[in-house]
């Protein structure tokens, strides 16, 4: 078997195992939380009988292992259960929320990833000169300011003062793509500013590391220009570390946007999760946890696979 196929298959199996382990942790974590779901649904005035009935109904008297497997098999079939607070099907509510979150993450990624890599390349080309210093200063400043503050600042200037964009990022199915984009422009900008620095710094560091190599000297001695040396000879050998940090940031764009969604009242997963954590709605928290874990593991698996494919020694064995 080709070694790449073997390695990729290994990653797939490992990722699946990891996801299973994560599901155990999520389930265990929500199970040992103090408090009683039945109590929180029925309130303080509930009678012992009604509490016992509800516990029976929710299957809470079964052993934890049984409940875990019931929950897992249902989740595998797409049934995430029903929310305790409003009795709605979780899969259905999550579906809409998740697609909103992915929509936001997608556009933030489309802008931030190429921009970060481009800025990284420019920073390497003009290392220790003013373009490098300017790029580092601006991106590091933007990562140092708390994201909610950037959010409110942009909202104040671009939405309130100039009126270019709406201050609240509401979207629904009736809107066209352009309308939607205008609506999410501000959160996309904030997210871009938040993830840009990390990816750009890593791109710069990874390429600078490769720039020490003898083959970069060979390229310089062929009379290639600075940018040719960087994008033809240095960049292809720096892909693995860059892809890793890009994937971590993409994962952040999906699972870490809680604050931004709250600031812009965006109807995504983050808000949904926060709402239901405060209401102690365990099935929703479990479902969200599982989805976030899956996204994280999936993106990191992609990073691993791309790193494997980027290695010519694995792609073309002797």
């Amino acid at each position, binding site marked *: 078997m080709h070694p790449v196929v073997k390695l990729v298959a290994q990653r797939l199996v490992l990722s699946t195992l990891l996801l299973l382990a994560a599901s155990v942790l999520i389930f265990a974590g929500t199970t040992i939380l103090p408090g009683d779901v039945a109590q929180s649904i029925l309130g303080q005035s509930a009678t012992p009988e009604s509490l016992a009935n509800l516990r029976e109904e929710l299957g809470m008297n079964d052993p934890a292992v049984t409940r875990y497997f019931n929950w897992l098999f249902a989740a595998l079939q797409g049934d995430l259960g029903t929310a305790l607070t409003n009795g709605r099907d979780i899969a259905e509510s999550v579906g809409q929320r998740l697609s909103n979150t992915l929509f936001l993450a997608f556009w933030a990624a489309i802008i931030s990833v190429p921009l970060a890599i481009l800025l990284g390349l420019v920073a390497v080309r003009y290392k220790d000169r003013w373009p490098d210093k300017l790029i580092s200063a601006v991106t590091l400043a933007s990562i140092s300011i708390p994201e909610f503050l950037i959010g409110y600042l942009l909202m104040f200037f671009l939405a309130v003062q100039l009126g270019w964009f709406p201050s609240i990022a509401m979207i629904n199915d009736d809107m066209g793509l352009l309308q939607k984009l205008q609506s999410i422009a501000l959160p996309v900008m904030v997210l871009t500013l938040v993830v840009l620095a990390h990816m750009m710094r890593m791109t710069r560091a990874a390429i600078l590391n490769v720039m020490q*190599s*003898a*083959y970069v*000297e*060979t*390229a*310089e*001695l*062929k*009379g*290639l*220009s600075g940018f*040719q040396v960087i994008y033809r*000879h240095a960049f*292809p*050998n720096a892909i693995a570390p860059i892809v890793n940090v890009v994937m971590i940031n993409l994962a952040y764009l999906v699972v870490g946007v809680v604050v931004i969604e709250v600031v812009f009242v965006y109807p995504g997963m983050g808000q949904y999760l926060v709402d239901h954590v405060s209401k102690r709605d365990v099935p929703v928290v479990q479902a969200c946890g599982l989805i976030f874990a899956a996204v994280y593991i999936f993106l990191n698996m992609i990073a691993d696979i791309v790193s494997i494919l*980027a290695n*010519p*020694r694995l792609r*073309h064995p*002797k």
Partner: protein
Amino acid sequence: MSDPLLKVRDLKIGATVYPPGEKPHDIEIVHGVSFDLAPGKVLGLIGESGAGKSTIGLASMAYGRGGVKITGGEVWVNGRDILKSPLKDIRNLRGAEVTYVSQSAAASFNPAKKIMDQVVEAAVEQKKFGRKEAEERARTLFSKLGLPDPNNIGERYPHQVSGGQLQRCMTALALCPEPDLVVFDEPTTALDVTTQIDVLMAIKEAIRDTGVAALYITHDLAVVAQVSDDIMVLRMGDMVEYGHTDQIINHPKEDYTKALVSVRSIEHEEKQPTPEPVLSVQNITARYKGLNFDVLKNVTVDLHPGQTLAVVGESGSGKSTLARVITGLLPPSDGQIDFAGRTLSRDLAGRTREDLRELQMIYQMADVAMNPRQTVGTIIGRPLEFYFNIRGSEKRKRIIELLDEIELGEKFIDRYPAELSGGQKQRVCIARSLAAKPKMIICDEVTSALDPLVADGILKLLLDLQKIEDVAYLFITHDLATVRAISDSIAVMYQGKVQRYGSKSEVLSPPFDDYTDLLLSSVPEMKLGWLEEVVAHRKMESAGN
């Protein structure tokens, strides 16, 4: 006489240094060197490390490696001073008029790109040839340089061809744009001797056939004597001697050149084997985890007390693996090792402290074998504490004795490894192994990373210490001159087997087996025309068969 292609006048080169504990400052590393190179001629630049020879070579492309800067003088290529040219003109010169072959082709090829893409890149980029034409030229060069399957080898990635082949690809890369001058920077140093001879001949023929001029940089005078018309001897950034190859090799004027020519003057009388060997390796077979072949096959050798067994072979012959098996780092799959009258445990965990003490090791890279944050005194003192529990003033006294034995002396006791030269570092490593009062020391390529004169000093020291301490050496090396200088018995290894084994006089006297013959005849001799003689001799033999 025609105008020189390359004219260097009073070239001065500086660099920024970062000595430990001091502020970084600029120093001059080449102090005004001048020479001419006519079209189609080869000039050898020779010297030890730090002589500035690579720096001068790169200066002919107006390039400074790392923090190196050209601070003065003139470099004229094809009638213009490139040090005064704008960067754009210099770029047009690099890869077109002047090209470069580096010491390590393995590191100088981009691992992510096909060989062909890299070989034709400069020629295409500099608009010397179209892509198709350049590829055609590359294939012709591959064939001329004796590469296997010249029509398809370019489609491979660098890791898919051997080191010697890659070095030839690098030569093709340099010749592809049809340059006027090629800078060869130690192009065969990293190769095995039997590979070196082929690459050397390929380079020489390529130079002759294309009529290109060359700067040939090396530390090996015997190699440069085979390819160059003129030789310049450099030392610490100064020119020592400059003349025709014949004059430098056969009638050197300066003392330093004489020392370089006559290096390896060590005489060592072969000792007779004793009845009882200190180390007896019996039928050892070993393989690494994950490999499907044995790296050592049924290896049997003896080492006698106070004597030296040289284990010689090329890379991949299994000689370093033998050291790993003897030290217990790699448990063998079969066989037995007797040491000092007892049978050693196969793996390290089963060895006693006495086993560890009596069997010491010295490594090729002295600087990575020492903790950079420990002083020389701490490094040498550690085995004294560990094996003998010697402490305090007694320990200090013993450390100073050891420092005297390795000819460094007490003043080195508080220095850090970074403050030592390469040869001094290796001496400290020798002292550390002697501190354990071992019966035997495994020396793994201990002089390979050192300049010839320094290496000579280390070998002399090892021989003197052997007389005083009565210690046996298992000396692993690929260098046959070293083997001649120090050994009492020799084991020639080839593909994991002991090809030839016996006393020095037996192993080095005919009749030879084919491999030993090839190995011995491949060692460059300080003699003009040696390369042609050997190659002609081999052609005749293969024609006769």
